[in-house]
């Protein structure tokens, strides 16, 4: 029991790092993903192609590789070469990667809204922007909640990848303790922490889904 209290400190500190990466990624990647989805569906061929290529690149290579690239290789890239500290590098990689996944979820959600909705809005005099904001996107939200929930839970677990930049997230903190104290107890506690975080997310999304259940399509 004493041991439990003793490891709680470092594990909670690790959880703090994990939560920061998680929250910042979500906060930045969701709007970026939405912007990318809108560009992907725009009438601008160049934007569609570029976003398509971007999504392919980000989903087609491992997130860990992207993170290593941004941290170690980006400084040597001509013109844009900058050296980022570990935390910003990790956030940048996560945001760029997750924005691609979110963009695909948003795109599918937007495309699942029928043509009749656009026409109804148009004959009522609504502009394209008004139609998107007031009619299409609100309907999209209900439809993307299940995949968005999946992706968000994956993100919680993916945060553990930042150990490659030697940052002390929850998993790395636990591993350090395991190696130091020769007991697997820290792993068990870390697992419990991850489970609590995903449980809270699951619960949050369930509440959202319930809220949107007031109407059927």
């Amino acid at each position, binding site marked *: 029991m004493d041991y439990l209290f003793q490891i709680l400190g470092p594990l909670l500190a690790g959880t703090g790092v994990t939560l920061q990466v998680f929250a910042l990624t979500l906060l930045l990647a969701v709007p970026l993903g939405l912007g990318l989805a809108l560009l992907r569906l725009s009438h601008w061929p160049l934007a569609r192609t570029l976003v398509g290529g971007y999504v392919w690149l980000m989903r087609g290579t491992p997130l860990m590789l992207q993170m290593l690239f941004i941290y170690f290789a980006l400084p040597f890239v001509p013109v844009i070469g900058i050296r980022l500290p570990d935390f910003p590098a990790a956030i940048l990689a996560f945001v760029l990667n997750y924005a691609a996944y979110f963009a695909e979820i948003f795109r599918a959600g937007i495309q699942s809204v029928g043509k*009749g*909705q656009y*026409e*109804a809005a*148009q004959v*009522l005099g*609504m502009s394209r922007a008004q139609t998107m904001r007031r*009619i299409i996107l609100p309907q999209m939200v209900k439809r993307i909640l299940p995949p968005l929930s999946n992706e968000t839970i994956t993100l919680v677990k993916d945060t553990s990848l930042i150990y490659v930049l030697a940052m002390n997230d929850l998993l790395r903190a636990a591993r350090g303790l395991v190696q130091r104290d020769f007991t697997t107890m820290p792993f068990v506690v870390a697992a419990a922490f991850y489970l609590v975080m995903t449980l809270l997310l699951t619960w949050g999304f369930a509440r959202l889904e319930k809220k949107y259940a007031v109407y*059927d*399509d």
Partner: protein
Amino acid sequence: MPSTTTEPMLVARDLHKRFGEHEVLRGVSLTVGKGEVIAVIGPSGSGKSTFLRCLNHLENIDRGEVRIAGEALVTTTADGLCRYAPEAEARRICQRMGMVFQHFNLFPHLTVLQNLIEAPLTVKGLSRAEIEPLADELLRKVGLFAKRDAYPSRLSGGQKQRVAIARALAMAPDIMLFDEPTSALDPELTGEVLRSMRQLADEHMTMLVVTHEMSFARDVSTRTIFMDGGEIVEAGAPQELFGRPQQARTQAFLRHML
């Protein structure tokens, strides 16, 4: 009666529209005066829906001219160049026309009342206090005030279509377009929708109604138009058109329908 020369509500001149190789409208012209109720009948694929959709900019025409209350939505120059009004302008012009679709196209995420007031709020910039009384009145008129806070998925087809009519009316249009408003309904539900439309006609709303309901065309329209193969084959007062059709194609169609 004061003799004022008023613009026709709607003028369509020589509309041409093709989808790929298929010429769907082959020179359709129609002038609609204020208060007229025009029924458009014709076989499937004759271009009735396309005609309506070209009037309110849901489709772009290839050649011709559309004027709403004197304002040009689209014109064609002598050398055949088709020119639309700029986007915002076109939107403003088309706002004078309401449209009711075969499949209602209500906004499922909004309640009945919200469906009615959405466009007046966002497009016209009215306040809730200004538009809600009108919306309630329209809902009473179509007999759905009790459903004002229900979501569309809870309504029957006939109720949905009546909400769609009220939603279009909430924008206070001068013309109402209907594209087969009862075709998606169970037969026992068409009556309530036709009643609302008839009431609107009695109030002298200018209406353009594509329909397979021959009795509605005959009893309510001031003029019936028969379309076939992308053109208006015959037009006239319903008694004339139904009683003494002149064209062989009209006769064949009516024989088949009645």
